[in-house]
């Protein structure tokens, strides 16, 4: 399966994931400055950590692209000194699985706004398990908890699904990704 990838797709995947990992790291810093008590804002930030899982598959459109990209992005975030330790890799793994499932549901044939937003949402949903069990989500009172969950899912759809799709489209307009699947598949590009 992986042998079907072209080398330049592998390298692009890594390089994009590195950029995303760098952005995640910046986001980590911002996140640390946001009062941990501002639960709604904290939850609203969630989606940004999912962008690699949509941006990369949206451009190269291969099975496993979402999962591997999110893992590599997490590894880069870790290498750059992220504060979550190996927990980052765990997040990367489960968010990557979440993102991947969305594209799998569409048999890797649909890469449009709906599949991208679904991907971001599922990644957020996957992360919520970790949040609930490991990052103390379970200690919150039920109202705050539900609010956090809903905002996280919406954030996943928007920051984690729509934003990377916009980035991919913008990148397509620059002509830089001419040689990748995104440029060759007109169906998935309603403009």
């Amino acid at each position, binding site marked *: 399966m992986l042998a079907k990838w072209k080398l330049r797709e592998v390298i692009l995947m890594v390089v994009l994931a590195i950029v995303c990992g760098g952005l995640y790291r910046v986001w980590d810093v911002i996140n640390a400055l946001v009062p941990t008590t501002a639960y709604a804002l904290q939850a609203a930030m969630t989606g940004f950590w999912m962008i690699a899982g949509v941006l990369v598959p949206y451009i190269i459109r291969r099975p496993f692209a979402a999962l591997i990209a999110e893992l590599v992005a997490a590894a880069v975030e870790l290498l750059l000194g992220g504060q979550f330790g190996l927990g980052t890799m765990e997040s990367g793994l489960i968010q990557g699985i979440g993102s991947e499932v969305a594209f799998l549901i569409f048999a890797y044939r649909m890469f449009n706004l709906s599949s991208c937003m679904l991907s971001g949402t599922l990644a957020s949903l996957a992360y919520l398990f970790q949040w609930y069990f490991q990052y103390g989500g379970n200690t919150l009172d039920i109202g705050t908890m539900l609010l956090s969950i809903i905002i996280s899912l919406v954030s996943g759809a928007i920051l984690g699904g729509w934003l990377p799709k916009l980035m991919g489209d913008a990148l397509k307009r620059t002509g*830089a990704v001419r040689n990748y699947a995104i440029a060759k598949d007109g169906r998935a590009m309603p403009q």
Partner: protein
Amino acid sequence: MSRPLPIHGQLPLVSVRDLAVTYDGEAKPSVRGCTFSIHPGECVLLAGPSGSGKSTLAMALAGIIPRSVEGAVTGECWVAPSVSKPGKIGYVFQDPESQFCMHHVDDEIAFGLENLQVPRDEMAQRTKQALAAVHLNVHPHAAHARFSGGMKQKLAIACALAMESELFIFDEPTANLDPTSTRMVFAMIAELRKQGKTLLIIEHKYEALLPVVDRVIALNKAGEQVGVFAADEWRRLSQGEQGACLHPKPLPVSPIPSSDPVLELCDLALAYSGEQVWQGIDAQVGRGEWIAIVGPNGAGKSSLLETMAGLRRPSKGTVKFAGRAITGMSARERYSHIAYGFQNPEYQFLYEQVADEMASRVLGDDVPEEVLHALGEFGLAEHAHASPYALSQGQKRRLSVAVMMRTHADIWLFDEPTYGQDPASEAQILNRLLQLQADGKSIVTVTHDMNLVQAYATRVWVLAGGTLLYDGAVSELLERQDILERAHLFDDILPLSDEGPDPSAGIAPEDVNTALQHAPKQPSWPRRSPVGKWHPDVKALTLLITAVVCMCCWSFDQAGRLWALVLVLAFAFGWCHPGKMVKRLLPLVLVYVIYLWAFAANAATPPGYRYVHWLWFHISWYGLNQGLLVVLRTFATVILAYVLLVTTDGTDFMVGLSQSFRIVPKMSYGMMAGMGFLGRFGHDLETFRMARRLRGREGWWILRPVTYALPLLSQSVRISERLAIAMEARGFYGDPANAWNGRTYYRQVSLQARDMVAGALTIALALVLWLT
């Protein structure tokens, strides 16, 4: 194609007839009508203006098109069996940065050998021979990231030599190099020819090479073959043309302005993370001057220019504009007086449309006449709606100059204004600058092009050895052999001689220093520890699973026991240095203190627990306890991550994936190559920040990552394409790339029973500690 007829009893290596190459998605071929042969031992120069398809033609001959780049090659193309095997055509690319996929010299050379399935025992010997052949006197295990450009190009040649390439293709190998490094590469080319290698060279400034060139294949702007010429004949034909692009003129030498300088540098110094780049710089720029800053690669010329523009803060000293310190001026005011052009014009683009870029605001579909007119002046009118990133290199530079021309600055700072330009657009840009100069503006350019310096500069600054070595007239500089030599400005224009070895084929003195500096250190203690010797991938998986178990702690008992395990792993088996660990992790501890407070002040308390209301906080012991637990288990994974990072070699980790776990080499080696990009990341971000500050669009800092994303991404795409092409050109396709056992391995990452046992034991222990 039928087998070509032998000439002088020799078959050609490559023979093409009416060859045309058309990229996918393009209507017209990029090159066409090419008919020529290259014979063994010949040195052939491929000449033509930029955009004439020289690289395209070379890539088609090497099989890179259509193998790695989609395109159709039509006509007849015959390649001798002796060079049609992988690695028999060695390709040296223009950008020394993006042709390597490993991190160390030996791994790099071995990468090609692995693709050829050379047995491992032979690799060290062949590496040594190849390094000796290019006079690259470095430790085989040195990291090549900080080599000079010239050394990197030599390494690329060594890689090809080790693979026993027969035909060498040089695709503008000196475009990014200073004059001395250029000379070094040229001398290497002459040596290769003497050894009987066949060479195909693409080079803009080829005069110095002509003595070793046998024939010249010329293309015109439309990508058609003009003809094949003997070197002498070509020299006669092109004499007029070469002279036309620069207009050397006797220049009045501008005296160092004694009064009323536009820009003053007072005792300026710059240091990066403790390392002094340059210091003690006192200089002035007067009205109507054209100053050229020259010096070796890595002397800090660009950072000097950036400091002069106030984009970079000097570690000491001040820059004054018209007598006022520029740090005291607002960014808006400063950049109304100072215009700045980056070496890579892309850094300056802020918009998605050429017309928007020109107008510095979003225009949409209606482009005002005035903007179209301004674009027209630079030949960009028909691209008004295109993306700036989609323009050709020449057009991008013209656009960035056009945008700069709309400001009414007094001083123009330009980093390599003619880099990557063909003579026509070079002349256009330089003429613009001449006009500015005539209007009394001051111009400062960083450049490697000594022709440009001689033709335009009224004064030259030589930056080398950490300070300003020379500030004065160009003509006097040319008589100062000592300075020329130290500043790597030595005779790249002198023709190569056919006799005897060229002295400059050796390594430049500065390069010896860098090479020695980057000699590998002894592996650290953690690397030599039992954890350090553990199979890297098994270790990573084990530590990851252990981290997941840690993250599932529900009580202090569990957390305490697992912490004990983590600490034993880190110190007893990992030999980590406690002091270093604390230093590295201290900033994170602060973040965790904040988390702890958040839990203490906000956790929901079950009935029966005490809490205190203060302001809007809900402070409870219960919350503090809960928070402490979350912090403890998360921080355990931070320590595990630290252990993993300090005990693991990244290359072993990636190679191990293929060697022990049969992951497709394309994946593991591709990832490793991509990871090299991480080193450039910081630099790129810094430059984007400066570019935005310059145009007053720095933006709210939280939103910055978003505005940086697009240029950063589009640049990433290009780098990854180049990297992939370079790797495939070294034989990384077919079995060696697709099957774990389709290649040999230089690094031995062996998976043994004890690795697995250690992994299983660690995980079992973690689970037991968690359960009890």
